[in-house]
Every structure is written in structure tokens, then in C-alpha cells.
């Protein structure tokens, strides 16, 4: 069985568990994103058809919630926490430094898909602000230098293509 089929099967299973109920749309979108990494239109259409929901409704829901991603995220994902505590402690300056270094804007990926820079509203690590997450690893009480160094490390030798 190909990876595609396996993924589809996993999604189907999840939908079945929820009896294809329309109220489970969020749960299924969560699951789909877990399986596929992001939600493209084909996938959304598939879900809409399986749950007998209008496609526009599914698209509306998927884009309403910021947690769902409709584009493939970069290989490496940097997430800056823009919660209050982190903001007060200067996360904005760190983000600006990353934007400058890699010529990338918040919410974007480099054209070669190596690096994505995202923001989130509070990861709840307020006591350790400012917090930046580099590929699932949280850097607490982050500074510009530490974060840039860390990004360099995860990227290995290659510098992502800039715009």
C-alpha cells in the first residue's frame, strides 16, 4: 500500500469513528492535518464529500481557525510567541532580527521551503518569556543571539534562499 493510501485510510478511520457527523469537522480537520501536515484543497474537498458538507462551509471553517494550515510548512519552522508576556519582554525585536537575517516575513516561508517563520498568540510559557520555538524545541528567555545561533544549527550548513 502506498503512503497516500495509508494516510487516506487513517483519515477514513477517524471519520468513521465520528460517524461522519458534521459536528466532528474540527476533530477531523485536526486529524487530517496531523496525517498530512497541512490541508490542501483536494483534501478539504474529500472531507466535505465524506461528511456531506458544502465545500464552502469546510473551507470557511478551515480558514477561520488559525491553527489549520492550508500551505505546506517549511522544513524548519520557527514560531515566535506573541503573547503578552513575551511581547512585554521584547520578543518583537528577536522576530525582527530573524526577519532581517533571512529576509522573510512573519507567516511566510522562504521560496525554497526550507524555513517558515510563524507567530502564535501565547504558548503559555509566560514565566519564561520571551519564548521562541525552533522545530518543536522551546527556547526560554530567548535572546537574539541565542535564537539566531539555534536557527543556524538546525539549518545545518545550507542557507535558505532569500526572496
Amino acid at each position, binding site marked *: 500500500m502506498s503512503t497516500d493510501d495509508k494516510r487516506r485510510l487513517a483519515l477514513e478511520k477517524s471519520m468513521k469513528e465520528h460517524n461522519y457527523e458534521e459536528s466532528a469537522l474540527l476533530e477531523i480537520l485536526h486529524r487530517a492535518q496531523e496525517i498530512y501536515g497541512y490541508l490542501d484543497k483536494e483534501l478539504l474537498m474529500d472531507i466535505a464529500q465524506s461528511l456531506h458538507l458544502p465545500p464552502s462551509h469546510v*473551507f470557511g471553517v478551515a480558514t*477561520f481557525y488559525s491553527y489549520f494550515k492550508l500551505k505546506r510548512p517549511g522544513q524548519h519552522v520557527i514560531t515566535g510567541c506573541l503573547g503578552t508576556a513575551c511581547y512585554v519582554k521584547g520578543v518583537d525585536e528577536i522576530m525582527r532580527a530573524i526577519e532581517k537575517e533571512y529576509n522573510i516575513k512573519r507567516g511566510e516561508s522562504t521560496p525554497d521551503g526550507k524555513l517558515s517563520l510563524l507567530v502564535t498568540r501565547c504558548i503559555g510559557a509566560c514565566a519564561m518569556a520571551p519564548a521562541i520555538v525552533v522545530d518543536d524545541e522551546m527556547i526560554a528567555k530567548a535572546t537574539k543571539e541565542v535564537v539566531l545561533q539555534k536557527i543556524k544549527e538546525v539549518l545545518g550548513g545550507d542557507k535558505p534562499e532569500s526572496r
Partner: protein
Amino acid sequence: MGDAIVTLKIDGVEVHVPEGTMILKAAKDNGIIIPTLCNLEGLTPYGGCRLCLVEISGSPKLFAACITPVSSGMEVTTQSEKLKEYRKMAVQLLLAEKSHVCSVCVANDHCELQSLANELGVDHTMFERNFTKEEIDSTHDFLVIDRNRCILCTRCIRVCDEIEGVHTLDLRMRGKDAQIIMDLDNKWVNSCSCTSCRKCAKVCPVGAIYIEGEPVGHTKHKEIAEFITERRQRKCK
């Protein structure tokens, strides 16, 4: 809705309406017109535009007349300095939100936002006007959507879902980024569910959805509420 009749006062006038009636309707049936934009008789009330805010004595809060049911002994005020100022504010915000350039709009002279601004005397906006370049989709044979004029009243979405029953239209994103979409945000010509029924164009209060080549005045000449009620009844049979 029960058969019980509720007695209340609107602008000092005693009115009697069936229980469950919304203040807006109760007022209209008694000759008191409250300005609205998102509301359209026959569609589920939305409560979004906030034009129909009214005061109810005993409460410091304001209530949207389209979604607040009457209750016995209620005293409603539909006109006051504060309400007028707030209605002007809502119109100003809508005018400033997108490129509302009336002189080059298909709905010029047939636009509910334009006429509200006129009636209320909104002779300028205290906010800088935004000029947007949202997508215009004219791929459909005769239906066009110009998102730069949309005030997100969602009448089109509701008529598409509740009357035509296909739910081609919905909203994408949220807040300031919200926009009307077809299916999976497809071009209109690629819509798999649109029946080209034109209802969306008929209910659009501004010039956001219109029929190409047809004067907007012509599209909207028919009393929309009547049109919808008639459709509803036909559906019931």
C-alpha cells in the same frame, strides 16, 4: 411562535404583536422604520451590521432590533441622539472599510449603504478611507462579485443556503480578512454547486454581487422580501 399577543411601547406608541416577534418587525408593522443593512425579511436574522440598535428602558445596553424579541411591557426607543450617532458611526466604518467609490459603482443610486449615508447625513468619515484591491471575479457567465464593495452582511450566503439550498457561498478567514467565497474559494466559473439562480445578486444591498449587463436597479426592482417569502411558500408546498 405562540398565538399570545404581547403589548409593548415603541417610541411611546403602544403596539400589539404576536409573542416571539422581533422588535424590528414589530416596529415596521406599526409604521416605525428602523434602519438596517444585514437584515432581510425571510432570512435568518444576523445581527451583524448594528444599524438597528435600539434602547430598551431599564437597560444601559443597546439591542439590535432584528434579533431581539419583544416582551410584554417593554419600552423601546428607536430614535435618540446617541442612536443616531452610533448609526452614523456604523455607516462611516463601512464606508471607510473598502473602496466605496459610488460614482463608478454599478449600484449607484440603488445602494442601501449609499442611501443610508444620505438619510443619516454622513457627509464625511472621521476615519481614513481604505482603498482595497480585493479580487473581482467575473468568470461566471453573468454573475460578478466585486469584493471591494462587500460589506459582509452575508445576505448572499444566507439566501444561497436557506432559500436556494445549495450553500455555494460562505466566508473565508475571519475579522478584517473575511471574504465571500464560492465552494473551496474557487473561481465562480468552476463552482460545482452554484445553480446560477441570481438570488445572491438580488439580495446584495450594495454593488458587490451583480448581474453583468443588467442595470442593478432592474435586478433589484422586485420587492426582495416578497420574492423570498414567495419562494419560501413554494418550497413548503
